[in-house]
């Protein structure tokens, strides 16, 4: 370094020590700001992501409810269709059984299958054949069996067999159960009254 009385060197406030200090603190403050802005940015991202996730969850919720409705409906469809298919199969077996029931010697001219009964029109060699070979099995199946006869041209007999299954048996049973339930209720009421009096 040169020293001179004629040309003095300029003295600055920013000496090397202060410059060093400013650089040091500058870096520190820069890092602090950087950390702060990083945290602010991450907070913002978390908030946005959370809002997105809530929206996604709501959408998932809606679609789950929708799919469960569809599942329930399809299950209903399947149950109904299975019951229909079973009913058709049972019907087929019933018709087959009905035709199997009629012996070779008896000829049917008409058969009406009703909800709770069966009406058969036909011709038999005689009443005994009808009684033993058709009426007996019919009696074992149906609750009420009515037969009427009239002579055919060839000496055979024409018959009309009307057979019903009583649903009343079930109804009577239900009524009895209801009566029992009412009696139990009455007993319970009496008991409550006695308790109340005491």
């Amino acid at each position, binding site marked *: 370094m040169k020293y001179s009385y004629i040309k003095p060197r300029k003295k600055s406030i920013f000496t090397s020590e202060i410059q060093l200090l400013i650089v040091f603190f500058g870096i520190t*403050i820069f890092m602090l700001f950087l950390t702060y802005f990083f*945290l*602010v940015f991450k*907070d913002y991202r978390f908030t946005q992501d959370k809002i997105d996730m809530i929206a996604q969850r709501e959408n998932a919720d809606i679609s789950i409810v929708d799919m*469960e409705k*569809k*599942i329930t409906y399809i299950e209903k469809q399947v149950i109904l*269709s299975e019951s*229909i*298919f079973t009913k058709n199969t049972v019907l087929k077996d019933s018709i087959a059984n009905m035709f199997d029931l009629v012996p070779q010697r008896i000829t049917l001219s008409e058969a009406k299958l009703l909800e709770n009964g069966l009406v058969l029109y036909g011709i038999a060699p005689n009443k005994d054949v009808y009684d033993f070979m058709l009426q007996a099995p019919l009696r074992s199946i149906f609750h009420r069996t009515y037969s009427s006869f009239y002579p055919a041209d060839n000496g055979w007999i024409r018959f009309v067999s009307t057979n019903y299954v009583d649903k009343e048996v079930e109804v009577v049973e239900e009524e009895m159960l209801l009566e029992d339930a009412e009696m139990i209720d009455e007993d319970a009421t009496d008991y409550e009254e006695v308790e109340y009096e005491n």
Partner: protein
Amino acid sequence: MKINISRQNIYLLSLSVILFIFVLIFSFSLLIPEGKEYRLKRAEFKKESLELRKYENFKDEVAQKLGELRSDNRHVITAYDREFDPQRFEKTHKDYFKSLNISQKTQVENKEEFNVYEVNTTSQINSPKSFYDFLDAVNKSDWIISINFPIIFKREDEMIRSSFTMKVYNNQSDSNTTASVVE
């Protein structure tokens, strides 16, 4: 005793103190609260994402179940969606009968979420076996059909005239699966 501090050192010291105070204030007033909030939000985010993953997994399970149900019961589902067409029914099932006449469908009572139509049928068959085969075929047909009482068989020479009622089940138009089946 005289303390001799140069102006240079006073500048240095005061600047250091100012900057140090600034760093302290900045840290305690902004940086640390923000850091705490960051930790809280990160925990919430993790909780939410875990919840969302559970929902997504459950949604996938339900979707898989729905897919399996649809693929297992495709025939039944499409049968409920298909409108009953008497001509097509006649064409499909005419092999079981000598003759087959089907009346126009009339709507009867609705069963739960299904429309029920009634169709009267008269036909001629060679033997009861044809009717059994027809009943088997009805269960595999393009519609959901139940054969109903009364069923009447009447002998006409060498043929049997049969008459019966069929109930056809359809989805109601505002049903929630009508569109889904097409998907």
